[in-house]
């Protein structure tokens, strides 16, 4: 590890920000087309972020300010460890456990900051976000642990490299179809897309954790959200859809996967938080357990089907 790793890390951060923000802007247009609207300009998301950074902002105390920085720092640190088409800024550190623990720093920073604002809507939003996390994490983690057990590796880049070279049939989402379905549903929950967006419900709890953010704080939260989206989609992409052999393949697959979740989100209503938990603990959990039993006891999925 030398100074070049940090330079690469910085370049990764800048590229990820530009790519994901552009993609979010394009997806706003996709959502608009679903609703038969013309939609915002493709660079609208950049305008929104820079506008927010330009404004004054109100502080609600030390915890509120520090939580934002902690969340953004934690999430940016996590982005650096994500392997993109085999490229890593810090080689050998792309372990699933490293990423999920680093991600927790950002998540807790966000929860701390939101709760520090003292607004009851923010506390309700944080409580719902953590409940939602508990709901989608259990089925997803069962599938991921099954995969780690079966392939004897917990490195994202190794697992995605194992799926390459066999075309679409090599993807874990095809080898382990139930697990793939669970992963897509959990991805909707991770990204806070409908029907699992009860923790940011704008008309119900006034955008939940974001309720007291304005100006520069809100700008940081928007940047954080772009990075967080990249991490979550990348994990699912690497584990279930084979990552990408080249950078272009990776970015194309990424864009398709993200747009797919957005299209589903565009036509869905919203679950209440208790409905979301009950939903995840019924069908996805059952599918994850069945998938785990099949992989562990029959070996189907580790070996190819055909």
């Amino acid at each position, binding site marked *: 590890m030398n100074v070049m790793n940090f330079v690469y890390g910085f370049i990764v951060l800048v590229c990820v920000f530009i790519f994901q923000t552009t993609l979010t802007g394009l997806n706003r247009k996709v959502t*608009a087309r679903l609703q038969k*609207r013309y*939609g915002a300009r493709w660079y609208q998301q950049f305008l929104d972020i820079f*506008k927010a950074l330009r404004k004054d*902002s109100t502080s609600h105390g030390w915890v509120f300010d520090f939580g934002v920085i902690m969340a953004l720092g934690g999430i940016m640190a996590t982005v650096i460890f994500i392997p993109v088409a085999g490229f890593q800024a810090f080689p050998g550190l792309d372990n699933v456990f490293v990423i999920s623990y680093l991600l927790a720093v950002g998540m807790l920073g966000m929860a701390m900051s939101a709760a520090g604002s003292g607004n009851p809507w923010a506390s309700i939003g944080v409580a719902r976000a953590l409940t939602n996390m508990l709901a989608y994490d259990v089925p997803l983690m069962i599938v991921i642990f099954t995969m780690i057990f079966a392939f004897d590796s917990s490195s994202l880049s190794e697992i995605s490299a194992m799926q390459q070279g066999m075309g679409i049939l090599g993807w874990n989402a095809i080898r382990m179809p139930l697990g793939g379905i669970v992963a897509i549903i959990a991805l909707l929950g991770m990204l806070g897309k409908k029907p699992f967006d009860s923790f940011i419900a*704008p008309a119900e709890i006034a955008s939940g954790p974001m*309720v007291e*953010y*304005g100006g520069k704080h809100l700008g940081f939260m928007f940047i954080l959200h772009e990075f967080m989206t990249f991490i979550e989609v990348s994990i699912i992409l690497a584990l279930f859809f084979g990552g990408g052999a080249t950078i272009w393949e990776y970015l194309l697959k990424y864009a398709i996967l993200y747009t797919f979740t957005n299209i589903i989100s565009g036509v869905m209503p919203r679950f209440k938080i208790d409905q979301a938990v009950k939903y995840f603990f019924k069908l996805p959990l059952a599918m994850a357990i069945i998938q785990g039993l099949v992989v562990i006891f029959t070996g189907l999925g580790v070996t190819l089907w055909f």
Partner: protein
Amino acid sequence: MVLDKKDDRNVWEKIGDYFSANSIWMKWYCTGCGAIEMPPTMTSRFDMERLGMGPMATPRQADVLLITGYLSTKTLRRVIYSYEQMNSPRFIVAFGSCTINGGIYYDSYATIGRLDKYLPVDLYISGCMPRPETIMNGFSGLIEMIKKGEAKGWKHYQENYEWYKKNQLDSLGKIIIEDEFHE
């Protein structure tokens, strides 16, 4: 009170105003009768997201406070609270005849007449009610005003705070709250 339109911005403020003009987040204060005109403006027929406008959930996140229709003296207090929670640069768009001179409620004891005695209004959209075409036209005007640096009601409010405060207190009167938070 007349707002001056002199352009005294530096280059960073000009760049910032470009972003502000193209990304207008609104807090709708719709206790009057105008709220029904907003859904058609937002949805597929008129689609205000084209211009980068959109509704936000709280005053902290918003740039524009949109006040539709008449304000009773009771809701005026809440509007002032909401406006003072917003972060500058912040703008007020007053909507409908009632905010200009009281409209058909001009002689009511329960509503206020002119809104700009209490808060610095940047733009009026007149009509009873303004149709979505008028709203879109009005907001195009606001975008131009922000780009040229003419929408500086928020600076005006800071500079003439005593005048506004006096009008607000005259209209609202003082209230005495006796609970554990106000001693």
